[in-house]
């Protein structure tokens, strides 16, 4: 082997730009001391050594990578946490028609998202020995409930010793209505002989079972609270009747 590593290597003029980073910026380009280039013995010293990409010296710093990682982590972590807590993923939701309940909400068995959402709002849950709150945000056709519309809530409620039906706004707050009472309850309800009932939710008084709502409220959610219901023990969830909600006139 007579490859003279120390002899000057002749290089095409176009090569230095592609050479390894050790040369770059060292001020040696003009000095013709190309002998210090690492040469590739496999190529008879005719080509400068190209290190594999992974071994090439890094110019972009560790600090920049760390900053990028942290920026992604902070934005992804906090934004996703905020939206998860704000919207609340529907783990353990019990859906009966348009009515939605979260039996574990407000208990120590609640999932962390539900617990965080619940703690932030400071709401008082109905514990399982007391009853279960069902919320309806849409009518039976799937359209969002609007405070400007009248609704007919008809059918039968799930078995419970007592239930109350109260209109709320989108933030689940009570709204001031023209009615003398805030809601309806199962003990003061006109029913047909077959046990079915028809409730009219409207801002103005209606004959029959009138549930007063507020036309100027921010959103409309119906809260049906079933007290002392077998649903909280998880028995007989199948084929449980719940009232349907139909939209009437809108202003």
């Amino acid at each position, binding site marked *: 082997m007579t490859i003279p590593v120390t002899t000057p290597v002749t290089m095409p003029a176009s090569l230095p730009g592609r050479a390894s980073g050790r040369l770059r910026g060292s001020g040696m380009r003009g000095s013709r001391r190309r002998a210090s280039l690492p040469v590739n013995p496999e190529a008879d010293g005719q080509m400068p050594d190209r290190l594999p990409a992974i071994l090439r010296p890094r110019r972009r710093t560790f600090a920049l990578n760390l900053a990028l990682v942290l*920026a992604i982590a902070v934005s992804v*972590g906090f934004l996703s*946490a905020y939206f998860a807590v704000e919207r609340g993923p529907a783990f353990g939701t019990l859906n009966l028609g348009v009515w939605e309940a979260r039996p574990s909400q*407000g208990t120590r068995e609640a999932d962390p998202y539900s617990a965080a959402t619940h703690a932030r709002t400071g*709401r008082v849950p109905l514990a399982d020995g007391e009853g279960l709150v069902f919320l309806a945000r849409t009518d039976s056709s799937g359209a969002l409930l609007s405070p400007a519309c009248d609704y007919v809530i008809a059918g039968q409620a799930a078995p419970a010793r007592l239930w109350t039906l109260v209109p709320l706004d989108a933030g689940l707050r009570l709204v001031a209505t023209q009615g003398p009472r805030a809601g309806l309850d199962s003990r003061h309800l006109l029913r047909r002989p077959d046990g079915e009932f028809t409730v009219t939710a409207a801002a103005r008084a209606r004959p029959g079972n009138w549930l007063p709502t507020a036309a100027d409220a921010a959103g409309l959610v119906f809260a049906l609270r079933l007290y002392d219901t077998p649903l909280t023990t998880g028995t007989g969830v199948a084929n449980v009747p719940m009232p349907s909600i139909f939209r009437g006139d809108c202003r």
Partner: protein
Amino acid sequence: MSARTSDRGFWREVLDGTLPVRAAMILLAGLFLGGIIHVVTVLGVPAHVPQTAYARISAFGPDGVFNRLPDVVPGAEPLPMLDPTMLHAACRFDLGRGPLKIEAALPPPFWSFALFNARGQAIYSLNDRTSGSGGRLDVLVITTEQLSVLRENPPEGLEDLIVIETDETMGYALLRAFDGEPLRRDIVEAALAEARCTVLAQQ
């Protein structure tokens, strides 16, 4: 010149695949770390809420007695998501001062009782049908250590009490009584005013 060479280095990295790999690594590391932040944040929320129901109840009267919460009316709900057709009374307790005895005799048609911890989570609940003593509520809330002390010298009538053993020392008890008939409201109000929430002395 340096701009040109770093530019060339950039394109070389794009071409030989270093840059996409590195970007993917940075993204993956960011997502993993973001996942940890997400979990820690969500789990940490309940402990860092200033306006818990437990904190708000202190506005309605002293601790250790049942305070009648104001009527649930629009714009002035004492606590969020209370039923406006119910009358409520709440008692904040601290089991560090001794076991808590809760007594109430509420009228039909419906009442319910629930215990919440300081974070607002329900730890025990019953209603007038499940209370098992004809509409009377007799409950003893007690920690495990206090119960072991109590067993050595049981007070009379212990077997008639519902004993709730809990590891939560702070919390509140909430009574709900149905307020359906306006004419019977006075009876319900008087019964709620008679509800007792007393700390038992324990040596």
